[in-house]
């Protein structure tokens, strides 16, 4: 599904990701944990193609399609989805309108016909309900005046609507209370169908209680320094990241 080989990413002339390798197979859930500044968000932005995140070496492919050669929207229609850590507020653009254009673009890319207005409305309402957002949110501006938790739930709703192949969840748990965390996790779990893959970026083990990962990786200084099963997350929770100091790293040199 996702294959990252020897990836190096520069942000403002600084190496943030430094020779990262990662291979995610269909249906797998991988968690990436790591201290602040390890390069977790940089990885997600480099994969989705954000301006200013310059890939200087290595490769990344989704289902054998070279991601790095594609425009941002092409990566999205190829099946890549990023749930933002800080979703953007867009006043004047209704959630509904935005979702319709986005879903249409995805369907077009897959050679499927557009949903009719009523079909679409039905799906949007169901998705809204699934993440426990009032239907009135569909009419509001994208994320406009949403609380932190509502924004995160809106991201999951978009994920449900867009049906991506690979979902990157960038700290989807941050700023959530226990109830909201459970809704977000349930939304994510509902999308696990044995084929769709997930890359879960988080600081805390908490989210992984709800979303059981197949693999846990520790990112530090722009590379994966340790990989293991779910037990690694527990270990990190208990010991913190300080034990990583024993690895050869220049603390404080990296930024997210």
């Amino acid at each position, binding site marked *: 599904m996702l294959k990252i080989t020897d990836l190096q990413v520069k942000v403002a002339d600084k190496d943030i990701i430094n020779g990262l390798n990662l291979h995610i197979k269909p249906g797998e859930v991988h968690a990436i944990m790591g201290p602040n500044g390890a390069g977790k968000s940089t990885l997600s932005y480099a994969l*989705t*193609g*954000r*301006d200013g995140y310059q890939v200087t070496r290595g490769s990344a492919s989704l289902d054998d399609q070279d991601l790095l050669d594609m*425009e*941002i*929207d092409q*990566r*999205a*229609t190829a099946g890549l*989805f*990023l749930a*933002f850590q800080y*979703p*953007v507020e*867009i*006043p*004047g*653009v209704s959630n509904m*309108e*935005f979702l319709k*254009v*986005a879903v249409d*673009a*995805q369907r077009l*890319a897959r050679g499927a016909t557009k949903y009719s207005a009523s079909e679409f409305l039905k799906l949007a309402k169901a998705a809204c309900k699934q993440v426990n957002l009032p239907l009135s949110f569909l009419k509001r*501006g994208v994320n406009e005046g949403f609380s932190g938790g509502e924004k995160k739930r809106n991201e999951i709703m*978009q994920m449900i609507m*867009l049906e991506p192949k690979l979902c990157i969840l960038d700290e989807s748990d941050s700023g959530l209370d226990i109830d909201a965390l459970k809704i977000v996790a349930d939304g994510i779990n509902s999308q696990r169908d044995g084929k769709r893959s997930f890359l879960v970026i988080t600081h805390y083990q908490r989210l992984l209680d709800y979303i059981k990962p197949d693999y846990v990786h520790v990112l530090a200084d722009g590379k994966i320094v340790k990989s293991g099963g779910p037990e690694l997350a527990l270990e990190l929770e208990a010991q913190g990241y300080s034990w990583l100091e024993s690895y050869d790293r220049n603390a404080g040199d990296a930024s997210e």
Partner: protein
Amino acid sequence: MSSWLADTIERAEEVNDWLSPKRKKSLSLLKDTRWPTRKTEAWRYTPVNNIERARFNVVESQGAPATDIPHLNAIDIVFIDGIYNAELSSKHFPEGLTITQLSEGNSSSWALDSFSKTKPERHFFGLINDALATQGCIIDIAADATIEQPIRIAQSFKQGTQTHTRILMRLGERASACVIEQLEGDELCFNTSFAEYQLAASAKLEHYRLAMQCADAISLGGCHFHLAEKAKLNSNLIGFGSQLSRVDYDIIHAGQFTDSKFNVIYLLDGKELFDLHSAIEHTQPNGKSEQNIRCIVADHSNAIFNGRIHIHRDAQKILAEMNNRNLLMSENAQINTKPELEIYADDVRCAHGATIAEIDKEAMFYLQSRGLSRNEAQVLLSFGFINELVDLMNNQAVAQWLRPILKQRFAAMEVS
């Protein structure tokens, strides 16, 4: 004096009708006014020399009427190339509403008295319109009348025409109505279209000026409102730029507890220009005025906004707000915005702000990361920028009709 102006004055001197006493005064003012150049402050960024270069005729009506607005169910007053078209216009009006044509002759003493009364003398092309506008309509709404049906004054202009139209409207005490001025045409033509509205005490006017002439058209006009005590105005201006588009707005708060809202959207493309000069006069205490001007400029277009708020000495407890936000879609587009606040009262709240920004890159990335192409994202974002004001429109038929038209205009915009 420019040759164009000399010819125009000559033509105007031949006009002889019931408005002649008023026309004479404006004509003499015109003779003493210099042709606007870049050195004239009110025309600093708006060259008018293309008026002199182009040749126009006064022609018989032959073009098509302005686009229909579905579901509006309006009382239609149709002008084609500046000439009233009785066939396409409504003939029956609800009780309390009288509409007559300027060309029919003197309808009442108030019409003669009101002509050129609300519109300030400083507007150069307003004086030209005073002297030459023999077409247009007079709308009179009786006191306490509520006219539910909107009144649509639809004007369309064809290639090569020169036209001058005038609207005069009076709303009696506590009367309420909705007026939609629609102007359309993209070919080279020259028209002046001015409107004067008198709102008596506690009258309410919902107003739209859809200044949607674009491309080669030359359009100069104005809307001038006089608000008596407790009168309320809600006006919306949609501006598509053209070779030369200029609108002057005057909202005169002449009574206490008057309230005006003025929302403006302009969208310019190509080499189009749109110039809006607004002036809000607060002459009495306890008034409220709010202006929201949003503008998007693409390609090599040029947007000008000059917003003046004048609060007179005894006009205490005024709340006046003016907010101008501009979105630049191209490095070659130009925006000139200037607030002018003149405040002589000491107990007022007057706020103004002007911003010029480019499309939010973070929002672009967000939308593109969901599969929207660059162009789709741009259309959605720029439309969102102005759609907030479309959402505020009270008339749903107008708002619904406008949205796809505005979107279409974004889709066609050159972005660099």
